[in-house]
């Protein structure tokens, strides 16, 4: 009797695990499907893409024409560099300013502390695109249209609220005793921030970095409006040149998109170890 009860428990545990994995595998398949679809078709000839879009590239259909078109154009390297500069500079700005603001909000008692926090929260709730016209006028007025600086400034502004919000919560978890020990040992407030607090919230920094990096890299809206010039195009915008009103060079579009994924994957791998720690440390305490 007891034995069968035990085996039922094991069975239900197995069933639960199976169900959990089924859900996760299902979701992974759904998420990966478009990526694989783009990758597979980017290696096929135009005829093969339309004849059998779901087929993998084979001896008859394999063709690198998309990649040669993209790379022959010559400006794709520039687009790539632009995307990288914009993404990394924005990321650096968001992390630097976000963590400083978060430390101040978590550590110091001052009159407008709560109000400042709420003000920043508004930035999470209101999409920055609502202010596009104002931003464009601002950029025209400051002669920043068609510069990478325009994009970087906008992305820093739009990324800061969520960064401050997440990092403040993590900064609050650092023990007061530790910061006070630093003060007694003669560390300045800057050193307590940079040398004591920042290393302790590194997992959270990685999390914020990944979550803000991907939308910046993928953004089409602001590059199109603020920096559509040839020398300031980003990868996502650059890929659009192959999509015409009447003719679309699908090989080139798919190849450009496939190439565009690479840097994001590289950065993700760089941050992923800390990312998972950052996400789970919020949940399990």
């Amino acid at each position, binding site marked *: 009797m007891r034995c069968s009860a035990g085996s039922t428990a094991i069975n239900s545990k197995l069933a639960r695990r199976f169900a959990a994995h089924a859900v996760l595998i299902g979701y992974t398949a759904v998420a990966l499907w478009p990526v694989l679809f783009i990758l597979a078709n980017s290696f096929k000839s135009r005829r093969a893409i339309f004849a059998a879009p779901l087929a993998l590239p084979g001896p008859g259909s394999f063709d690198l024409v998309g990649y040669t078109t993209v790379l022959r154009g010559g400006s794709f390297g520039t687009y790539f560099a632009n995307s990288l500069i914009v993404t990394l500079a924005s990321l650096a700005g968001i992390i630097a300013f976000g963590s400083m603001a978060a430390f101040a909000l978590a550590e110091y008692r001052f009159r407008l502390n709560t109000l400042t926090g709420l003000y920043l929260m508004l930035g999470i709730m209101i999409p920055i695109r609502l202010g596009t016209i104002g931003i464009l006028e601002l950029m025209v007025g400051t002669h920043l249209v068609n510069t990478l600086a325009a994009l970087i400034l906008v992305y820093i502004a739009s990324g800061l609220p969520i960064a401050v919000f997440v990092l403040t919560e993590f900064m609050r978890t650092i023990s007061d005793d530790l910061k006070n020990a630093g003060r007694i040992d*003669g560390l300045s407030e800057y050193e307590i921030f940079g040398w004591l607090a920042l290393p302790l919230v590194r997992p959270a920094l990685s999390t914020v970095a990944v979550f803000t990096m991907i939308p910046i890299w993928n953004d089409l809206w602001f590059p199109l409006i603020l920096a559509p010039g040839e020398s300031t195009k980003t990868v996502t915008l650059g890929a659009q040149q192959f999509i015409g009103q009447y003719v679309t060079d699908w090989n080139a579009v798919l190849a450009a998109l496939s190439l565009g994924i690479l840097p994001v994957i590289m950065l993700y791998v760089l941050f992923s170890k800390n990312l998972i720690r950052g996400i789970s440390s919020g949940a399990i305490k």
Partner: protein
Amino acid sequence: MTALELVGITKRFGQTEVLSGIDLAVAEGEFAVFVGPSGCGKSTLLRIIAGLDGQTSGQVRIAGANADGLAPAKRGIGMVFQSYALYPHLNVAQNMSLALKRAGLARAEIERRLTVAAEMLELTPLLKRKPGTLSGGQRQRVAIGRAIVRQPKLFLFDEPLSNLDAALRVNTRIEIANLHRLLGTTMIYVTHDQVEAMTLADKIVVLSSGTIQQVGRPIELYTAPANLFVAGFIGSPKMNFIAGAEARRAGAKTLGIRPEHIRIANENPRWDGVVRHAEHLGSDTYLYVRTDTAGELTVRVAGEAQAAVGERIGISPAPATLHRFDDADLRLAPL
């Protein structure tokens, strides 16, 4: 010479006053313990002495010099925290020497002080380890070592034993007492545990709701508590309080008697009552007696007492052990 002098210290957070008019002098080499229930302001007072928090008014003088406005690092203090607060990314030696490097001491001098402190605290084999790999007791010793190497004028301890288990707490308590004998430095120690206060202190400062209730040697606080609060706070089990007709007859609002000052009396007992509960500790027996006229009294009998729950017994106070308190809860002269 006074190592620490507090003059009229008050502290307000918005409208709430957490410390009001604290005046205190601690002599050089003295071991002073701030004790009180949580929320009485003792930790805030320590933070003000350390310079980690500013007072609303009043003055802090350390070794005769005004310390107001001085940064914590410049006050000549060493502080040991409840949570140890070791830098997780530095090893033991680096943790202990950081402040000295900051102060710009010569390398040889840092090395010498580090060696001496590590020897004293038996930390020498651990010097290259990271705090994460140490046990609670070892971390506490490193935290103490970090304070020692600075050769402070004033040692501040903020509930240093609270995170240790019971056995280790007793050992560390003895180590801290030894350390005080060895170094002879003035120590300010904050705790909510009256046993720690009684065993360690030269001078106990009892705090409650932001004011000093009494300052004195441990035994003074035990034998002559200034008021009802101190009487109830110092001593374990707690002093019994008797109000009502019984107290009025003695010319007081409240009578106090310590459990260890009540005897079981078979002839002419002052109080009769029923044993409601008994705790047998071996060395002592605690009897909780519901008396007919004086309410519930705790009786501490040395050794093993054969009193069963439900049994009716007579009890009497030992001569000259009753404390009397007036309407303002202040202690009256003994009868």
